[in-house]
């Protein structure tokens, strides 16, 4: 919206600040000046303004002048409404409001013998030519310009009809089914029975509060005019405007709540300008009001306001006096409120008809703070006696992030949405995917049931950009359920491709593989207190493995007897579908299950002072025997002095049978209280050999 400071100053003769300062002070009071353009030559400045929709009253020159008057405590000139005495009318012009729910006030004034001409600077406060030139507002004709000028001056839409086109009188009513109206934009419209129209006794003349009609518009031949200034109900105007796809200055204002008492004022201003080129008024102003709508706007009940409440909410000011009764009275009176004392430092406040956004005591308190100036309040800190509690999952979350980061994974954040097909692929419960009603795109049609789709999109994005080493994780929310009830769970997903997170000029890079990812999973689980953790997988025909994983290179993660997640190599079918030639490893963990476990608290134990002894065993095994079997067998020996055993190397060679492999196993023995004797060690070794023998291993000779 464009505002001329020259025009503002015409209403504020005592305003002494310059245009820059005025702009700054208005902006700090919520009347935002976004741009200032010097018009030169004593013409002041043009402000480009951005007024929030709750302040429609300030979307015009007089409204902003009122704000400035309140800020600086200077007088605001009243609008000059003096009109010549009317000629007597044979009968008062007929106006009837049928739609009493939608039209609160309708004023009509008959002007006769006017001349439609070019606009000029008619008189003080009506410099139409100068102001339109500075605003680059197109002049059309003195009649149309008069209504536009008054709109820009004080924000009340008005309309001028060619009186000779009106049959009988005015009726404000709902349209009749099938009625037609050609509006000012030249479009012939078929009206809806819900549309609000201004009609005469025979036909609709205008879409009420939205746009006038073609047939009754002012032309150069017009001699007699009916000036309309009315108040229409916001919802009625919004519905009519929407139905016809129209958004006009008038509809903008009426939709947001016009000033109930502005109609006669605007009517007088328009009439004064039209009469400046000749003509006369016939009869008194016809002013029809609907009391129910007047009670909701201009005649609202006063609001009780107490100084103590103002101070309780607003607090301390940098000025030692703080907010006083005089501050409250000064600010609110300047904004158009009437304050009647109601006890000590309390008032009964009558609200101005143009401020429909003010309804409650708190609204008045806001006005006091706003006009007083937010930045004149002190910076204080409230006292606090309570304690601070962290989220129950906060520690676990940061342990997870730390573990993944130290394993070389960057944290990522992916879209909350995925395609229905990705959801079908990755959802733990395929039927329980939640679709959106207005998705951003087809690829984002549902709430993600898993973090895997995001991981796949991101790994593909990197690989397709020739970033070949990828290690990403995400800690986020996954969704399941129905459109009636949506469940949200926290999840952790990770993906890796390319080389391990090691960078060396001296050693070749090694590609990340299944067991690297398994190591990360083990480290994640090691942050939690667990008694049993194991990994397994189901035969593919069981249909229990996630469809996105390679059925023979993936594993289920089981902690404390519960499935907490899956990981492994991306199914080659999915890799091909996504044009991924590289091996992609990825996995997902249900954090709500993991969060049920307490975080592991490290506990120190005594370190043995006695020498540990390591013995290596070279075993030959059938390929059907997995390490886990050897591991469990050794664990079941429960030899306290056997403190560690691990697979050091597995390999196949020609000297072995076709379905055999060799396993080098290291076992460490150590006692807490003595040096182990050779006889003891030999006994332990024999126990180990016997045990692995039962599990199907033989010693390599």
């Amino acid at each position: 919206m464009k505002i001329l400071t020259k025009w503002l100053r015409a209403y504020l003769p005592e305003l002494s600040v310059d245009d820059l300062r005025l702009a700054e002070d208005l902006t700090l009071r919520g009347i935002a000046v976004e741009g200032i353009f010097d018009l030169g030559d004593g013409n002041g400045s043009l402000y480009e303004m951005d007024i929030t929709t709750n302040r429609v009253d300030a979307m015009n020159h007089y409204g902003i002048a009122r704000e400035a008057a309140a800020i600086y405590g200077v007088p605001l000139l009243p609008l000059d409404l003096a009109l010549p005495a009317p000629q007597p009318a044979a009968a008062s012009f007929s106006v009837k409001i049928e739609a009493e729910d939608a039209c609160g006030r309708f004023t009509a004034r008959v002007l006769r013998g006017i001349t439609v001409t070019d606009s000029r600077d008619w008189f003080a406060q009506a410099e139409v030519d100068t102001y339109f030139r500075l605003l680059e507002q197109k002049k059309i004709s003195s009649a149309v310009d008069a209504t536009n000028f008054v709109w820009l001056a004080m924000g009340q839409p008005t309309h001028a009809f060619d009186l000779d086109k009106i049959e009988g009188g005015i009726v404000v009513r709902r349209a009749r089914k099938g009625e037609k109206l050609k509006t000012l934009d030249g479009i012939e419209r078929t009206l809806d029975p819900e549309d609000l129209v201004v009609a005469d006794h025979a036909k609709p003349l205008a879409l009420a509060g939205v746009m006038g009609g073609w047939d009754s518009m002012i032309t150069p031949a017009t001699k007699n005019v009916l000036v309309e200034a009315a108040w229409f109900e916001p919802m009625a105007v919004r519905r009519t405007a929407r139905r016809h796809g129209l958004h006009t200055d008038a509809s903008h204002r009426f939709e947001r709540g016009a000033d109930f008492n502005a109609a006669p004022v605007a009517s007088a201003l328009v009439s004064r300008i039209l009469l400046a080129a000749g003509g006369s008024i016939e009869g008194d102003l016809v002013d029809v009001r609907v009391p129910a709508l007047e009670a909701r706007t201009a005649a609202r009940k006063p609001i009780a306001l107490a100084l103590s409440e103002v101070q309780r909410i607003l607090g301390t000011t940098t000025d030692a006096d703080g907010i006083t009764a005089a501050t409250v009275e000064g600010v609110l009176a300047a904004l158009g409120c009437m304050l009647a004392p109601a006890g000590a430092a309390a008032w009964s406040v009558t609200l101005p008809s143009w401020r429909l956004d003010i309804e409650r005591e708190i609204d008045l308190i806001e006005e006091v703070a706003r006009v007083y100036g937010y930045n004149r309040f002190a910076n204080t800190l409230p006292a606090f006696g309570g304690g601070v509690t962290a989220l129950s999952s906060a520690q676990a979350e940061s342990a997870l992030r730390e573990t993944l980061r130290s394993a070389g994974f960057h944290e990522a954040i992916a879209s909350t949405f995925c395609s229905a097909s990705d959801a079908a692929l990755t959802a733990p419960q395929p039927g329980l995917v939640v679709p959106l009603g207005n998705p951003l795109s087809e690829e984002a049609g549902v709430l993600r049931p898993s973090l895997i789709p995001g991981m796949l999109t991101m790994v593909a994005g990197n690989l397709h950009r020739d970033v070949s080493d990828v290690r990403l994780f995400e800690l986020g929310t996954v969704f399941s359920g129905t459109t009636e009830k949506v469940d949200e769970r926290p999840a952790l997903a990770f993906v890796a491709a390319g080389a391990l997170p090691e960078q060396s000029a001296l050693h070749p890079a090694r590609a990340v593989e299944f067991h690297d990812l398994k190591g990360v999973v083990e480290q994640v689980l090691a942050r939690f207190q667990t008694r049993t953790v194991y990994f397994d997988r189901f035969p593919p025909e069981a249909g229990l493995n996630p469809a996105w994983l390679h059925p023979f290179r993936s594993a289920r993660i089981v902690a404390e007897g519960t499935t907490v997640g899956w990981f492994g190599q991306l199914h080659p079918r999915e890799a091909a579908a996504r044009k991924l030639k590289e091996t992609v490893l990825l996995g997902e963990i249900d954090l709500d299950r993991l969060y049920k476990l307490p975080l592991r608290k490290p506990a120190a134990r005594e370190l043995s002072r006695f020498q540990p002894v390591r013995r290596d065993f070279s075993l030959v095994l059938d390929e059907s025997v997995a390490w886990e079997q050897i591991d469990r067998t050794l664990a079941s020996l429960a030899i306290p002095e056997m403190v560690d055993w691990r697979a050091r190397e597995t390999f196949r060679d020609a000297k072995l049978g076709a379905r055999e492999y060799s396993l080098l196993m290291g076992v460490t023995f150590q006692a807490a209280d003595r040096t182990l004797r050779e006889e003891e060690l030999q006994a332990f070794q024999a126990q180990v050999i016997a045990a692995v023998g039962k599990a199907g291993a033989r010693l390599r000779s």
Partner: protein
Amino acid sequence: MTNEVIPNLTAFDEAALGQAFATLERQARDAASALGSPEAVEAFRLHWLGRKQGLLNEVSSRWLKAAPPEAKKALGQRFNALKSAVEALLDAASGAGPSDAALAAEAIDITLPGSRRLTGAEHPITKTLNEIVSVFAALGYSVGVGPEVETDFYNFECMNFPPGHPARDTQDTLVVANQDRRPQRDRLLLRTHTSPVQMRTMEQQAPPVRIVIPGKVHRNDATDATHSPIFHQVEGLCVDTNITFSDLKGTLDHAMKALFGSSVKTRFFPSFFPFTEPSADVQISCIFCGGKGCRKCKHSGWIELLGCGMVDPAVFAFAKEKQPAYDPKKISGFAFGMGVERIAMMKYGISEIGQFYAGDMRFLGQFA
């Protein structure tokens, strides 16, 4: 080992003795300087100090025996000095390990880059969220979270959005499918702000409340350089008896100084939010130019950073239905909210908001 034979001494005067012993000592020093391995050190020891064939043994047995009695004392003193010198050379050689020459053969290129075990990066959004949260934790704020899928009631109605408010339109809000037949307040949507957690917290907890709420939110927005349908907010709520607008100012002024440096200034100006009254937008003095005016702050010297205000009594009225202590006549409070992406973009000089969600290793690696 065959020792080289020491020369016979023909004269036993001072000059002859001095020259003979100096020659031997020089030979010992030369030999010692070339010692490169423990084996060589041992050979040196045997050569000079060996019990049977060592050179010093030779000197002792041949020169001392041959010397006339008047020269024996001077010769003995020189012999002891030589022996001490050789022993010192031996001590030095065995303590120093391999010689510099031997070590030179093991030279490496120290200018090659160091081998690195790469660690992962914290996401800049997580990092920024954590920074904001810890500033408020230090002011006594606990952390709260809430669901990303919300009901119309929590997202809009109890936050005092009137029916028909534009934000409720599907043009602005992403909604779950098939909600049309449900009562308005039960309809499910993707929360458009973290504010619903204010109400969820108040329903659970009587005042005093100090809570900071980080979270992911969604709007039906087209993506451009600075807008994304997915973004993050941090919301704050403080409710107690006698919480004032000046407390709101002081709290946010303190928080902005903690986040952006103690020289940062704040200014507040009127704004409008349905759930606060009075409402304010907060600007901080430009962190790039210090307020002088630059491209980043559009030459205004100020950067708009967050919205805030005093909790609207209408919001307390909703909370009061479950917690009677939220009587707007007895308590008061303030709330504030800020966009995490915007702050992170400013702090780290990020120009495209989309980079936060693309998972590009090159982008994320910069934050390691």
